[in-house]
């Protein structure tokens, strides 16, 4: 295995790593695009008679210099995922399932679980908007 092939394999592993747990289509597109790029670069070098070491150096530079953008891209994709997951839900019924990291923490901090129906609602409310139950006063009749 030549040095450029090794670097290409490492870059491929990296793209598999940062596309983990993303929607399958998004992950597939990014992986396929990068695999194509690595192949094209090696092929161009082969045609032009450049040494595998030079090609490897170029690929290492491109992979390493792109790491911050890769991470930012992943973060953006995860945010989109979270937004999509929350869209069908009522804003009155925040849910922590599907959230991760500080978003989950923040949601837990801002909401409380209803002792009667088990749903989460904002801490600014004094009763659960779903079952109209207050933790202190029991069922609240708003009608």
């Amino acid at each position, binding site marked *: 295995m030549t040095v450029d092939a090794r670097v290409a394999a490492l*870059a491929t592993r990296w793209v598999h790593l940062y596309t983990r747990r993303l929607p399958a289509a998004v992950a597939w*597109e*990014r992986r*396929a*695009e*990068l*695999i*194509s*790029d690595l*192949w*094209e*670069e090696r*092929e*161009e070098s082969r045609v032009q008679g450049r040494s595998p070491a030079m090609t490897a150096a*170029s690929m290492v*530079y*491109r*992979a*390493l*210099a*792109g*790491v*911050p*953008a*890769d*991470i*930012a*891209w992943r973060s953006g994709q995860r945010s989109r995922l979270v937004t999509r997951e929350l869209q069908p839900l009522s804003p009155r019924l925040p849910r922590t399932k599907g959230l991760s990291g500080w978003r989950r923490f923040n949601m837990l901090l801002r909401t409380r679980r209803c002792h009667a129906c088990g749903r989460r609602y904002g801490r600014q409310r004094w009763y659960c908007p779903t079952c109209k139950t207050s933790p202190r006063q029991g069922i609240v009749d708003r009608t």
Partner: protein
Amino acid sequence: MRRKPNTLLPLEADILNSGVALQRSGARQFYGFQLARQLADAADARRLTAHGTLYKALGRLDDRGLLASTWEDPQVAADAGRPRRRLYEVTGAGERALAQWRITHADATTYAARRGLEPT
């Protein structure tokens, strides 16, 4: 720092410029590595744009409708014995955004001369 909506970053403008140059040179569509090579040649740079930087910018432009992308026919790639390419095309909106960027940021001739490209 958040940027203003409907503005282009220098890299995005370079991508659109290189894409337009490739399309004018006869290629109807272009792919990622070809674009990286064109960007490096146009800027007379030794190094190609980093993978993450390039594909993130391409994704942004695609999302905004400034580029249109399609995946190459698997049979074509299989016949050529290589992985499938994602093919990009600068849209009309992309050309208009680039023209606007040139007006806003610099005199078109100076910009093109700096990038080694023909002004439109």
